């Protein structure tokens, strides 16, 4: 329970001049000589940071935390985000000083534990992807995508080719086209066929020598596995392009099938999805990539390597490398967690995770095909799904007069995080539902019940959904106003 004191005051609006949570360590050296820092390089007035005591600081942020919904409190079927349970063991091991206080520039000889961990993780991810060479460097999925497309560019350029286009399906996640642009390519869309797969004819039509790469998610963002993947790979490789695997949906296939075996050249992982990093309300994440032999020479610097003597080292040479995409060796803290997860589950456990994720998704889909729901929220592609599935709210909108957004907001009043809404774009009023493997059968049944109940309710009184939520700390917010006159920082009263 949270206090009723005005909760939306920012930390800058609390406290009073002179209050403090920080006590400075004793000045145990002579004060710096005046000329140590010339006056014209000095700051004139202190930054107007908050002035609060420790108790004020703690209460402010503890009470703020209580205005968040979290995975440890309820169901969070946010499609494409794989909101699986975050084991606290991972936080414990990541916090061990030997990991947490290890400086990134520590001599490799004195960071053998960390390098071995990274090496082991590289091996494991390579095995899961079916692609032998791994770089852990990228900071998130989209960072991995950028790495992948830049690798593609390096690959082609090394072969003297200047290709100009990258293909992405119209179901692709926004980061795919955005990445393509940043990597200096032109985005070309590929259509989707009737059963949710890549439209092969369209693909053949588009695929030419100017195509550098096809970026694909399989299972797709529709939660469907594209059975034509072998043929797709053939077409893409036929024109000398690379095939990129967006790994956001890897949670469906771990230990069952492997991108490398499907013909992909480059894969990115979202460790914060398939390998259960806590999402932190928007990061941190980690987006390692795995690549095939032909792409390996261009992989980022530095690489963790194993020396003959069994020791580990960082290889900064790599003449053909595209270089680095960030500082140091990547989000090591995430590696520790992902590695702990892999060692906890092992080969069997990872496969069990994917199987159960797919089982849970299909079970929930089956529950939602019941009368009273299916008429309003039909599944977009009526087949077995993988780890997630897409419903269309179009009939609901037509017949009950409430939009997918309204349903989502009404779910908030029932302590459930709504599914991903209005994505993928090609399904009207889409709801993308991903239960993950860590939810119980009871939770899935409860959710299906709730959906049915909300639809019944909407049939009687659609206003309830249109005005939802009502039980949340705030109700619907005026996003238009926020964008029209952006207020993106606290204005301060005349500096105290």
């Amino acid at each position, binding site marked *: 329970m949270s206090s009723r004191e005005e909760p*939306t005051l*920012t930390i800058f609006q609390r406290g009073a001049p002179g209050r403090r949570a920080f006590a400075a360590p004793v*000045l*145990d*050296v*002579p004060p710096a000589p005046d000329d*140590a820092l010339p006056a014209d390089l000095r700051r004139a007035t*202190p930054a107007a*940071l908050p002035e609060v005591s*420790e108790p004020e600081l703690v209460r402010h942020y503890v009470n703020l935390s209580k205005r*968040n*919904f979290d*995975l440890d409190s309820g169901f969070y079927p*946010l499609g494409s985000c794989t909101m699986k349970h975050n084991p606290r063991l991972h936080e414990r091991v990541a916090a*061990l000083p*030997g*990991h947490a*206080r290890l*400086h*990134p520039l520590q*001599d490799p000889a004195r960071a053998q534990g*960390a390098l071995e*961990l990274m090496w082991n993780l590289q091996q494991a991810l390579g095995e899961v992807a079916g692609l032998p060479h791994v770089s852990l460097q990228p900071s998130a999925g989209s960072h991995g*995508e950028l790495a992948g497309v830049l690798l593609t560019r390096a690959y082609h350029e090394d072969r003297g080719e200047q290709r100009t286009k990258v293909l992405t399906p119209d179901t692709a996640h*926004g*980061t795919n*086209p*955005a990445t393509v*642009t940043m990597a200096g390519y032109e*985005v070309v869309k590929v259509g989707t066929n009737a059963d949710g797969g890549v439209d092969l004819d369209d693909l053949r039509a588009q695929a030419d020598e100017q195509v550098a790469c096809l970026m694909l998610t399989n299972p797709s963002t529709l939660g469907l596995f594209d059975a034509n993947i*072998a043929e797709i790979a053939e077409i893409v490789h036929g024109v000398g392009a690379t095939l990129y695997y967006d790994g956001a949906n890897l949670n469906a296939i771990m*230990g*069952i*099938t492997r991108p490398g*075996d499907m013909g992909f050249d480059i894969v990115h992982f979202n460790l914060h999805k398939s390998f259960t990093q806590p999402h932190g*309300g*928007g*990061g941190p994440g*980690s987006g390692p990539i795995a690549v095939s032999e032909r792409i390996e020479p261009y992989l980022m610097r530095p690489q963790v390597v194993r020396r003959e003597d069994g020791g580990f080292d960082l290889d900064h040479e790599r003449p053909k490398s595209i*270089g680095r995409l*960030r*500082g140091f*060796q990547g*989000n*090591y803290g995430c590696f520790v967690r992902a590695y702990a997860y892999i*060692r*906890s589950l*092992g080969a*069997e456990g990872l496969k069990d*995770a994917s199987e159960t994720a797919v089982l849970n998704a299909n*079970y929930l889909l089956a529950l939602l095909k019941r009368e009273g729901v299916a008429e309003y929220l039909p599944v977009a592609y009526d087949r*077995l799904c993988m780890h997630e599935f897409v419903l269309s709210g179009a009939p609901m909108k037509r017949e009950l007069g409430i939009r997918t957004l309204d349903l989502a*907001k009404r779910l908030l009043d029932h302590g459930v995080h709504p599914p991903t809404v209005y*994505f993928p774009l090609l399904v009207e009023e889409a709801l993308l539902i991903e239960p993950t493997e*860590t939810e119980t059968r009871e939770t899935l049944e409860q959710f299906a019940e709730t959906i049915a109940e909300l639809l019944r309710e909407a049939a009687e009184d659609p206003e309830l959904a249109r005005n939802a939520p009502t039980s949340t700390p705030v*109700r*619907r*917010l005026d996003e238009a106003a926020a964008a029209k006159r952006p207020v*993106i*920082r606290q204005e301060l009263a005349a500096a105290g």
Partner: protein
Amino acid sequence: MTTYTSATDADRRAMLDAIGVPSVEELFADVPQALRLDRPLALPAGMAEQEVYEHLRGLAARNVSAEDEVSFLGAGMYDHYVPAVIDMLMGRSEFLTPYTPYQPEISQGGLQVMFEYQTAISELTGLPVSNASVYEGPSAVGAAAYLAKLANGRLRVLASRGVHPYSRETLTTLARGYGQQIEEIPLREGATDLAALIAALDEDVGAVVLQQPNFLGAVEDVAALAAAAKQSGPTHPLVICACDPIPLGILKPPGECGVDIAVGEGQTLGNRLDFGGPSFGFFAATQEHLRRMPGRIAGETVDVDGRRGFVLTLQTREQHIRREKATSNICTSQALNALAGVVYLSWLGRAGLVELGELLLARTAYARERLTLLDGVEALHEQPVVREFALRLDADVARVRERLAAEGINAGYALGRDYPEHPDGLLVAITERRTRADIDRLADALGRAVAAEREVAHAGVGA
């Protein structure tokens, strides 16, 4: 079934019945047999929690962390004290486990934190516009260069050699995609060579990239460098400055130096070293670039009842709406680390940030003087320094560092690999955790080590 899943055999049977398939196997019918993995993954078997703990503890024990030695390593990440409140807050499920706040009504905590974070960064940098975080330092520099391209379309980028080598390398990597070309402005006596900068400027230059303090610890005259860039012509390039946020408590903020975009590594603000990440990058700019900013931005608004609230705003910049026309491809960022950042800054507070800066200034001055008094040790440059400084040793740096390591001291960062012109360079970093006693210990050990190595060298068995 694992300890993280709940489907018992009974559950499975009932669920499969409801789905209408005989086996879990069947659920994967769409995956062509030829592509099925016909063997278990070649990974070790799963382990019990305590076994995983012991394994990870064993690996940790094979690292020498800042808990195990007296470390003067810096060069981009620094061993600052992280207050306990941060662990507590970062550990709260409510901050730790949610996704990006797509549903603002149940994410006001995280959104307000972003808003407060943006305010703190804006105050720190003296620039009006901050986003909610980018990945980390060097990629933030890259993101800034991309903004410059969006802003003026020019392809020449001038980067001071004082910019972190990793930032310059990242710029170069990205430049192949951005279509930019990165050129270096040399250093003169440890600081960016103003004359060389002026000489290099022309109307094709889209951005000038600086770092404060620079990699060698020197406090740059950013105002002068920025002024030069702006005088380079009517449509001058953007000035980008990568800053270490801690010294900004006492250094003139980039916003007052004519900097257009201030970015930097946020690790020093309440984040652990973590062998390099996760931390966060901050990204602040002048008003005119608001709609070119990368990543998330939290904005204030009201709900239908007029209550104050916060949302992700200006999303039309972003990939999920704008797709190939987005100002950046960033999606998952570093929200939790940015939370640590704003909590840390609030913990330090208005006075504390200055006190910390002054403490580092004093200890750095003390250390620099103490060490440069040693035989065979001299300052690599005479520029003002605030938390880190470069030395030149009259001895093999690698072997000297080894000698100190054997005494439980990490002497700092050897400059040779990144600055071949300084094979004998050593970069020494100071934080509030390095006491006078630690510095004296370093001085004593360094003096002995340099002396010893010089003897070896003279004895001619130096190679």
